[in-house]
């Protein structure tokens, strides 16, 4: 480790991290105070969502030629423009599009795309180039550079993604604030926490366990106490994804001082019989988002929330032999919010005439430009410090 990093790290570790009394000084914020307190919700469609059957180029002959079995017909879509239509299952998304609360950014990707789920997920979550291997996630680095506490980034899921793991701080993973809180109520563990000096902790796995324990203690009570205030009655789909979104809505409306929420919706790896599977997943996604946005609107929090949806890659333009699609590259990204500057279709349609050597879409927007925009223009922090590089920002917010 470089000396500079070491000093910075020790300063952080001794100053703020994990001092139990620091919680006492923290006041819970009321709803009015939270007005203008911006947060971002990030959703990964895991498995590689087929962007072309989500936002369909319904007037493009090449699309129909390359997908004789699984193309979306005109009747299966809801029209967005003269060239593009959205999958017919996405009714709620269509109405967000109509009300100017959805921006669709086409052709998002990165140079030398990697078609492995795991590698490409890592690339998206760490905001690395395709030949760069980073051990920290971009939200984790945001926590390191800009936040005091782990709960400022929460993943609503049973485990924590790389995206939320920083060098010094990690976000909190939870599915139920009560459960997390109760797990910290054991007298024995509390005594262990009280008797542990965070400055003496090592870099090995043992130190890692203790650090995680201390961080959990410093966040669990806050999250639980705060989250008690709101329990949404909205109509969320009765799926894991629906439950995660409801959980996030509860936390946002309860007034948690959390800036980043993260969750995922999985099953998009449609190598076989794609149509039924993807339709079901997209319907789930769209209905969930619809309920989520309604919830936030009712509580006046939508204007301060930005929802970003991505997938690790898109899928090949040509269908495969099993009515499905193989791994591809560039894809669309959805930005949803009450305060969008550029609404609707952000940029040009995918160019099906100019595919790469694998028959995949070429990217025109680097995904890190989107991250940079969210960091700088929404969360109002230095994007360069987190992304380690300057990217052209976009103007959707």
């Amino acid at each position: 480790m470089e000396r500079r990093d070491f000093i910075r790290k020790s300063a952080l570790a001794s100053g703020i991290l994990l001092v139990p009394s620091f919680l006492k000084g923290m006041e819970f914020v009321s709803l009015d105070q939270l007005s203008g307190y911006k947060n971002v919700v990030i959703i990964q469609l895991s498995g590689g969502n087929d962007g072309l059957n989500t936002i369909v180029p319904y007037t493009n002959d090449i699309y129909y030629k390359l997908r004789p079995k699984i193309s979306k017909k005109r009747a299966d879509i809801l029209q967005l423009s003269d060239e593009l239509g959205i999958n017919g299952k996405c009714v709620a998304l269509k109405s967000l599009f109509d009300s100017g609360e959805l921006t669709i950014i086409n052709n998002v990707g990165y140079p030398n795309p990697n078609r492995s789920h795991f590698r490409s997920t890592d690339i998206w979550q760490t905001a690395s180039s395709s030949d760069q291997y980073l051990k920290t996630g971009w939200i984790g680095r945001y926590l390191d550079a800009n936040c005091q506490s782990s709960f400022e980034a929460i993943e609503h899921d049973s485990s924590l993604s790389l995206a939320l793991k920083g060098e010094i701080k990690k976000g909190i993973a939870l599915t139920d604030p009560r459960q997390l809180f109760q797990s910290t109520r054991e007298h024995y563990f509390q005594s262990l926490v009280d008797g542990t000096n965070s400055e003496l902790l090592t870099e090995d796995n043992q130190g890692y366990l203790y650090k995680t324990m201390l961080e959990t203690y410093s966040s669990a009570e806050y999250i639980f106490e705060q989250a008690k205030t709101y329990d949404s009655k909205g109509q969320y789909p009765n799926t894991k994804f629906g439950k995660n979104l409801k959980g996030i809505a509860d936390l946002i409306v309860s007034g948690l001082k959390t800036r980043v929420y993260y969750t995922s919706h999985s099953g998009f790896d449609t190598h076989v019989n794609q149509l039924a599977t993807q339709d079901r997943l997209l319907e789930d996604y769209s209905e969930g988002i619809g309920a989520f946005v309604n919830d936030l609107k009712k509580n006046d929090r939508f204007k301060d929330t930005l929802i970003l949806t991505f997938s690790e890659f898109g899928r090949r333009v040509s269908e495969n032999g099993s009515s499905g699609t193989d791994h591809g590259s560039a894809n669309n990204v959805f930005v949803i919010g009450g305060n969008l500057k550029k609404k609707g279709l952000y940029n040009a349609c995918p160019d099906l005439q100019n595919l790469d050597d694998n028959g995949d879409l070429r990217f025109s927007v680097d995904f890190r430009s989107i991250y940079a925009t969210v960091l700088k223009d929404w969360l109002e922090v230095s994007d360069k410090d987190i992304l380690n590089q300057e990217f052209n920002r976009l103007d959707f917010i």
Partner: protein
Amino acid sequence: MELSKKQIQHLYWRAGFGVDPSDLNKLEGKPLEVLVDELFESSKRFAPLEMKLAAGASNQKKQSKNEKKKQAKINKTGLHELNVLWMTQLATTEAVLREKMTLFFHDHFAVRIKSPVDNLTFNNLLREHALGDFGKLLVAVSKSPAMLSFLNNKQNVKDHPNENFAREVLELFTLGRDNGYTEKDIQEAARAFTGWSYDEEGNFVIHQKKHDDGSKTFLGHTGNFDGDDILQLILKEKQTAIYLTEKLIDLFIGRELPGNRAEYFASVFFNANYDLQTLIRALLTSDDFMDARSIGCKIKSPTEFLTGMTRLFEVDFKEKTTLVQIQRKLNQELFFPPNVAGWPGGRAWIDSSTLMLRLKAPSVILNFGVIEWDEKGDMPEDKLIQLEEKRDNTQAKVEKKMQAYPNWEAFEKKMKNEQSRLKEFLIQPELSVGAQKLLAVSDSVSLKDQAIEIVSLPEYQLF
């Protein structure tokens, strides 16, 4: 070299699921090579998991909606039964090294399919080859209904190749991600695997009409390759030995090795034509393995964590599905890997929510959720009574749910010779200062209460 008790424990934790305390005296004084020989000897026999299942039931194609629903239910119950069967084998078997490697390959060749029959066959296939020839295992896995269906090779046909299997075989099973192959190699390999499928009974078949027998260029070689040729070409690459060896170093030694040690072990493996036993023996008898830095440096997988506890305390789970629920909570449900890459492992096992569950799990499994820890001395009597009442309440509630019963009598008997080193026996790494303080002020006197306190420490998560 004379091995310390701690080192013997280390060997049995890494090559198995911990050592029986009553065996420690017998093992002490034997050289490492002999202990490793004994481990192989007790794993020599291959005892497959056996379960009565309607063969082929899940492979039927045309089913009505009702039949499908029924089938789904049968599959789910079947997988739970299979899970419990394996957990029982893990908790009782002498062939610990074979089971350890079966678990390793359950993760390495991760499949997630619904059919209990195919899962059972696949799991036994992994067990059979677990200490044998990796090349043979790779071929058998590639031709198994489980893998063929999971990675869609049934749908991989001439004119419309499906790349799923070809990509993962290179990326996850052999060479490792981005290690000396291209997108073109994947596409060519996919062509070679076209037509590979299986029949209703689960036998491997090649549909010649669907097989692309044209010329392919793969990793620089050109020919009319079929799937078998591709697998052999992959095995010719030393990178395959390097990738597997790195994973096995992580499994047994658990830390990055300095200099060219990894390369050395990879050469051992490659020169032994992928004989797993040769490599494992080299790893376990190496100085790197017994180095103090290797002891207690790894985080247990949930299965290792659970199995270690179940074996030592002889826990009887009256309600077997509880075992499945605990696995699910700890993020490792057997037969349900998160995806084809298996479980991320290492530090990924631990985050805010899983850590607290894992710290709580020992007291839940061993004492219905109560750690009887109190600080020595000054608690007023009325408070003490109150606390005991609260604890009794908790225990009554948790017992109903868990129905897990450790055998404390047996434990005390087994621990007879090791009682004075209870901490050293239960915990592999050095205790933290905080943990030492906590145990020092404890007013617990019984072996049971002390043991529960110790296994509830973060250090028990390590081995």
